[in-house]
């Protein structure tokens, strides 16, 4: 009878996920299959602040869990590279990408093998972000904190007000 409580805790507190695929190498699954990394995702910062009517605090460089933009019911795990209002240089492109309002730019660490904002989605709504991956807990020899880190030299303009902005229009 405690199962609903566990479910509530994992949607408002912390949840456990298996990382599938090679798109986040070398951060996750560095040796590939068959042992896959399992991570703890911190959700309360996003969910609790959303309940309070505030925008969750995301930082550039965080590894985030988000709902897949093109596949209902699925999740992806990527690194948050840019937030709304940023101007981003995308390797291999001539134009600079401007991130629209309420959106972000996510990329896998494994540039060659990742379907992400570069190759597939474009800017992704921040509403899809569910939480931050904080800790790898399995396999034991890989356990440890997930390091945050921005790609260097990619942002041409940083929007200083992108984090923790109060809500405005909603119609």
């Amino acid at each position: 009878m405690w199962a609903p409580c566990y479910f509530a805790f994992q949607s408002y507190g912390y949840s456990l996920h298996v990382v599938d695929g090679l798109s986040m190498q070398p951060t996750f699954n560095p040796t590939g299959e068959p042992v896959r990394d399992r991570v703890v995702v911190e959700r309360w910062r996003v969910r609790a602040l959303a309940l309070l009517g505030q925008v969750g605090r995301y930082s550039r460089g965080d590894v985030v869990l988000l709902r897949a933009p093109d596949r209902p019911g699925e999740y992806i795990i990527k690194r948050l590279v840019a937030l709304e209002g940023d101007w981003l240089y995308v390797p291999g492109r001539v134009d600079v990408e401007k991130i629209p309002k309420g959106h972000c730019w996510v990329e896998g660490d494994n540039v060659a093998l990742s379907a992400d904002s570069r190759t597939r989605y474009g800017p992704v709504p921040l509403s899809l972000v569910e939480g931050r991956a904080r800790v790898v807990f399995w396999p034991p020899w890989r356990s440890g904190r997930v390091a945050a880190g921005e790609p260097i030299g990619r942002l041409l303009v940083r929007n200083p007000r992108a984090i923790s902005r109060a809500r405005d229009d909603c119609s």
Partner: protein
Amino acid sequence: MAPVRLLGVLPKATSLFGRELRTLVKAVGVAHLIHEFVFELSIAYGPSMMPTIDSIGDVLVVDKWSAWRRKIEVGDVVLALSARTPHDRIIKRVLGMEGDIVRVLPTSRRPEGGGKQLVPPGHVWLQGDNTLNSTDSRDFGPVPYNMVLGRVVFKIAPLGKMGFIERKIPEPWYG
């Protein structure tokens, strides 16, 4: 035997209100499960869905089950996450599912209209019923289906306008 007994005895012995507290925590868990997967009550503000939903704070029943089971269809009024303001919620009507071609109606910002657009895989096209005063897919484009939280099925208040909210396809806009 001993550890099982201990688990059963310990909370009662340590807390006077252990039993009530545990019941309360369980009830919150069940309530959350219902809120997440069955239905929730929601209050709507804003002019974008007039006249279907008034701007003064109609109380609505949102069916979460059909969004989770992917039973949303064209013509449904849905509660969705905003593409413009993270984790804010909007209420719009679905005018197209993936693979549909929708006509982009003119908005106040773009009076000439936007022609026709294909809704990409895993996305829906949302539009407010009050097309003259609605920020929707015409402004921010198709929305991922994963941002649809539920289907608005019933209006509770104001009591005089209580009733089901129909699935209808606004004919001249869609196609």
